[in-house]
């Protein structure tokens, strides 16, 4: 890439910011900020989709950009904020691995992710192929976040961040999936969050807390 145009540079900047946001999430313990970061991630994703739509002239990408804004930047964060207020869960407890350790693990994961993405990047014909490694990193970092957190709410944010990473991966490798699939995936994510909302209240009702150590009694008996 000797000569990159301005919009491609913008796209790459978006990708870099997405990765940065993943690290920010990894180090953040305040649940409200975590949800805000998720909203920003959703917004960035929409901007990236829009840029790509404009660049490639693929109309269905405009739809998915609109869908991303509506669902991932607006509705889901709003829903999560509402849940946080109603359930009064503002802080996550100390994660299973301390923050600096998690960040170091995160760095290793990024290296691994770029290695994993190598064969795909080589074969991709899209102009955004350099972002595939970043998408895989976002997915794996979200995975790490889900593993190290104890509060149900942070795990859910990790889950949604993973979904964002998958979406970004699909976009940078293939300019997005067919519309029918994208709609279906969006519907599933929406329903999943609604189910979770109900579910959180059930857990709260039973345990008076959303701390997941209450949910560790079902083990094999010795």
């Amino acid at each position, binding site marked *: 890439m000797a000569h990159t145009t301005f919009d491609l540079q913008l796209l790459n900047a978006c990708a870099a910011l997405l990765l940065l946001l993943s690290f920010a999430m990894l180090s953040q313990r305040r649940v409200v900020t975590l949800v805000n970061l998720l909203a920003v991630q959703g917004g960035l994703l929409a901007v990236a989709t829009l840029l790509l739509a404009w660049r490639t002239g693929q109309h269905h990408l405009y739809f998915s950009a609109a869908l991303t804004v509506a669902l991932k930047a607006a509705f889901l964060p709003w829903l999560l904020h509402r849940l946080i207020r109603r359930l009064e869960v503002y802080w996550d407890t100390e994660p299973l691995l301390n923050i600096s350790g998690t960040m170091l693990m995160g760095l290793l994961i990024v290296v691994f992710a770029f290695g994993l993405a190598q064969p795909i990047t080589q074969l991709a014909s899209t102009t955004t192929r350099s972002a595939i490694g970043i998408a895989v990193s976002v997915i794996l970092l979200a995975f790490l976040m889900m593993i190290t957190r104890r509060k149900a709410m942070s795990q859910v944010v990790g*889950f949604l961040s993973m979904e964002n990473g*998958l979406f970004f991966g699909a976009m940078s490798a293939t300019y997005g999936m067919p519309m029918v699939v994208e709609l279906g995936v969006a519907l599933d994510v929406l329903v999943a969050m609604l*189910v979770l909302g109900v*579910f959180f209240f059930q857990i709260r009702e039973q345990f008076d807390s959303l701390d997941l150590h209450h*949910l560790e009694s079902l083990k094999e008996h010795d």
Partner: protein
Amino acid sequence: MELLLLLGMPAAGAVTLGFLGARRYAPELNAVFGSGTFLAACALTARVIRHGNLLLGREQFFIDPFNVFLVTLTAFVGFTTSLFARPYMRVEMEHGRITAGRLRLYHSMYQLFTLTMLVALTTNNMGLLWVAMEAATLSTVLLVTLYRTAASLEAGWKYFILCGVGIAQALFGTILLYFAAEKVLGAEGVTALLWTHLDAVKTQLEPAVLALAFVFLLVGYGTKVGLAPLHNWLPDAHAEGPTPISAVLSGLLLNVAIYAVIRCKVLVEGPLQSALPSRMLMGFGLLSVVLAAFFLWRQRDIKRLFAYSSIEHMGIIAFAFGMGGPVANFAALLHMTVHSLTKSAIFFTVGHAAQKAGSQLMDDIRGLITLSPTIGWGLMVGSLAILGMPPFGVFASEFLILTTAMKQQPWATPILVVALGVAFAAIFGRVQPMVFGETSARRLPHAPALLPVFTHLAIVLVLGLYVPPYLAQWYRAAAHLIGGR
């Protein structure tokens, strides 16, 4: 037309029962919708027998020998489970474990769950397959937590998160598949995710990407199959939810998930020119069989016991598909059918047995045969069938799998035989005192429905002695399609 009816029936059921699900006659209504779905499945089957493979709805749906019998099986077990649930859920209500509102949730979600499974089976679009699989998880999460006990909430959370993360891997695999296909089929048409198109051009797809895609798809859908070591959610979800849900999770959902894995394997195996998919399936399968056999010994809860038995059988099926070739594939398909029927029949009897004893702990269930000989015999016969005793169908399929393993993978045969033996001792040793001996059972306010139990077991018995010619023909055609070796 038949397909529209097949998918429309549970959809209409979900909506109707969403409004009427708490009424006194709702369980009957649920059964009516179940029977309607089953009739539609029969009509579809009749059409396939007459006309062969079908490609419907702008190629979005596809019926071939591999999924036609699974569609019928799913609709049939869905119907019989609704018959079983009729008295079962009434008893649960009288015991005060659920309220009318939750019964409505149960009925509506049950129909929705049937719908998602049927969509997953009939769709030709690998993306829609993913959407339907995820929807199947979502529609059952709130059913697993139906009793709102601490344990059931934990089981539901585990189910949600583990299957959610697992299925996210499958989405990544699907994206990779699309990525590989789009180069050949073009991004403009939406054909790049249609299985029939993928199958036609599979030799041109990029092997490196396909290998990566398959790993993600196997891990993703494998989580839903309950393959070890991704099986953690399965025993909890089976044990803590209401028994009809245990029966359909074990008997149907696991089948649908393994169906998804095999559809992917068909696409990947040819172009890869390597044994990677087969080896992975055999490895995961064998690990599941061995792990489940030993975990069986440590169970105290009767539903957990049979949940681990499901993991074991899914392992056997995955191993057989991994070996590949006409005989092993045939046996695996037969095993999918008979396991589904037998395991759901067992869960039906187990549900009533647990209600009679007032506990799911095996130590509390004693002497079923004195008070209710039908439940006792049902459990005994069902257990013998699932353990692979002749003349039941499970014996036929396990025998075929073992003899093929001796020829193709001799190293695996002793492991399989030992694991099956261990499982036999564990389950039989547990079931025997529950059926015979001093009784601890009490009478139930509603007579249990045992017709489904004995219908299932009778079919399994028949399949052990004689496979109807068109069924055998489908199995053979599907086995040929799946290929391998």
